[in-house]
C-alpha cells in the first residue's frame, strides 16, 4: 500500500512540474504551448540515454534540462513573431515531430521498442526507502521550480513580463521589447518540462514513444485549467485531481475485469474531452483560479 501511494505521489509530482511549466508559459506569459509533451519527451530520452551510457544520473538530468531548453529556442524566436493561434499549431506540430523522430531513429532511441532498464537512483536502498527518497527529490525539484517562478514573477522581470502580456504596444513604447523575455520564458518553461521528463524516465525506468502522445499535453492543460490558470498552488491541485481520476478509473478496471486496457484508454479520452468542454463552458477560471486570459 505504501509503495502504491508513493508511486501515485511521484507521478503527481511529475505532472505538477509539467503544469508549472505550462503555467509559466500560458498563465504568466500568455504563450499557448500545445507541445508540452515534446519537451517532456526530449527530457526523458536525453536523461535516459546519458544514464544508460554509464554517466551519472545527475549529469543526465542536467543534460535533459539543457537540451529541452535549447530545443525551445527556435520555437521561442518564432513565438515572438507569431499570432497566438499559430504558435499553438506550431508547438503541436513540434511535439508530433519529436515523437516521429524518437520512433524512427532506432539507432539512438531503439524505436517503438523503447528504452528499458533506465538506471534508477538510490537502487541500493529497499523499494520503499527508494520510493521515499525519489519522492523527496521530486518534491525538492517542485519547490525549486516554484521558488524560481516566484522570483521571476515578483522581481522587475515579472513586472516587465506582465506589462508585455497586458499591452505589448505600450511596453514597446516605453522601450521594453517583448522579444527577449518571451524567448527566455519559453526556454525556462521547456527546461522545467525536460526536468519532469528526466524524473519520469528514471522513475518508470522504461520509456517508449507511445508514452509521449499529444494527449499528454492536454492532460497538462486539463490539470492547469482545473487548478486555475496562473495559480501556482493550483498546479499541484490540478495535477493531483487528474492523477486521482486516472487512478480512480483503474479501480473501475478492477471492479469490471472485462473492461481492461483498450476500453479504459477510450474512456479516459471521453472523460478528458468532456471535462475540457465543460470547464471551458462553465468554469474557465478553474476550481480555484480567479483570472482567465483570453
Amino acid at each position, binding site marked *: 500500500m505504501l509503495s502504491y501511494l508513493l508511486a501515485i505521489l511521484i507521478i503527481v509530482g511529475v505532472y505538477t512540474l509539467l503544469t508549472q511549466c505550462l503555467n509559466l508559459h500560458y498563465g504568466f506569459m500568455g504563450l*499557448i504551448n500545445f507541445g508540452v509533451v515534446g519537451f517532456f519527451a526530449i527530457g526523458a530520452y536525453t536523461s535516459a540515454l546519458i544514464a544508460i551510457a554509464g554517466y551519472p544520473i545527475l549529469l543526465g538530468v542536467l543534460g535533459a534540462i539543457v537540451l529541452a531548453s535549447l530545443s525551445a529556442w527556435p520555437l521561442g524566436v*518564432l513565438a515572438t*513573431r*507569431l*499570432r*497566438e*493561434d*499559430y504558435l*499553438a*499549431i*506550431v508547438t*503541436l*506540430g*513540434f511535439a*508530433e*515531430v519529436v515523437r*516521429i523522430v524518437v*520512433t*524512427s531513429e532506432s539507432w539512438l532511441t531503439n524505436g517503438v521498442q523503447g528504452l528499458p532498464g533506465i538506471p534508477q537512483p538510490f537502487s541500493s536502498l529497499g523499494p520503499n526507502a527508494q520510493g521515499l527518497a525519489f519522492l523527496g527529490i521530486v518534491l525538492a525539484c517542485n519547490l525549486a521550480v516554484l521558488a524560481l517562478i516566484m522570483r521571476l514573477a515578483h522581481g522587475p522581470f515579472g513586472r516587465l513580463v506582465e506589462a508585455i502580456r497586458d499591452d505589448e504596444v505600450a511596453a514597446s513604447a516605453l522601450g521594453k521589447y517583448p522579444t527577449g523575455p518571451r524567448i527566455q520564458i519559453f526556454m525556462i518553461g521547456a527546461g522545467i518540462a525536460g526536468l519532469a521528463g528526466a524524473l519520469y524516465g528514471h522513475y518508470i525506468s522504461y520509456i517508449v514513444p507511445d508514452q509521449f502522445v*499529444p*494527449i499528454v499535453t*492536454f492532460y497538462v*492543460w486539463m490539470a492547469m*485549467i482545473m487548478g486555475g490558470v496562473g495559480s501556482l498552488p493550483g498546479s499541484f491541485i490540478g495535477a493531483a485531481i487528474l492523477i486521482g481520476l486516472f487512478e480512480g478509473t483503474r479501480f473501475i478496471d478492477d471492479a469490471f475485469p472485462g473492461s481492461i486496457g*483498450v*476500453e479504459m*484508454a*477510450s*474512456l*479516459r*479520452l*471521453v*472523460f*478528458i*474531452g*468532456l*471535462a*475540457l*468542454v465543460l470547464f*471551458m*463552458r462553465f468554469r*474557465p477560471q478553474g476550481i480555484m483560479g480567479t483570472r*482567465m*486570459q*483570453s
Partner: protein
Amino acid sequence: MLTMYFNLVVNGIVLGLVIGLAALALTLVYAVARFPNAATGDMITVGAYAGIGVQVLGSRNTLLQGSAAIAACTILSMAYYWFVFRYLRGRGMVALLLTSIGLALFTRGILSFFAGHEQFVFQIPLVEPYVIYGVIIQASDLWLAVVALLSVVATFAILFLTPIGRRMRAVADNRDLARASGIRAESVMIPLWGIVGAVSAIAGIILGIKTVVMPETGWLLLLPSFTAMILGGLGSPIGAVLAGIALGVAQEVASPFVGFTYKIAVSFLVLLVLLIVRPQGLFGSLEEVR
C-alpha cells in the same frame, strides 16, 4: 525513375485533395468563428467510420457509404455548434480552440470505445489500372479525385451562387456590417456547420478508401490541414484547396527522400518556412496576421 515520380504525383494529388477538403472545412469555420477548429480531424474520422459501419452492415455500395458518412457528419457538426460553440461566442480564441480539442478527444474516445482500436479497410472492387506511358492511374483514384473536386465545386457554388452563401460571406467578412444589413449571424451558422460536416465526411471516405481507417486517422491529418489553411491564406476557401493539393504532392514526392515516417514532418517544415517567410499565406487575406 521518372515514372515513379509521376506515380507519386498522382497519389499526392488524391491525398492532397483530402488535405484540401479538410483545410476547406477548417477555413470555413475560421472565416466565421475565428479559431482553428481542432475537432475537424476527428470529424473526418467519424465520416470514415460511418462508411465502415455501412460496410459492416453488409453494403459495399460506396454511394450508400458516402451518404451515411455525410448524414452522420452533418448532424454531428451542427450539434457541435448548437450544443457547444454557440455558447462560446466572444470568449476568445483560446477558449474556442481548447473546446474544439475537448470535442475532438471526446469524439475519438466514443468512436474507439465502440469500434475498438483495430484497423478497418474499405473493400473496393479491384479494377485494372490505366497505364499511360508507364504512369499507373488507379480507376478508384480517378473516381475519388472527381468526387473530391465535385464536392469542392458544390461548396463554392453554395458560397458564391446562392443567397445563403452570400450571407455567409457577408458574416465572415464583417459581422457587424452584416448585422447592420439585416443578416443575423446565427441564421447562417447552422447551414455553415452543416457544410463543414459534409465536406469532412467526404474527406473521411476518400481517406478511408486510400489508406486504412483507425481512430487516429483524422487527427493525423490535422497538421497538414492546418498548414494548408495557413498556406492558402486564412479564411480563403480556394486557397485552402489549392494549398492542400500542393502539400499532398510535396509530401508524396518527398517521401522517397525522407522516408515514409517523416512524411507528416514535411508539412511541419513547410509550415515553419511559411510562417517565417510569408505568414499571410500565398493568397494573403485581409486579416492582420501578427
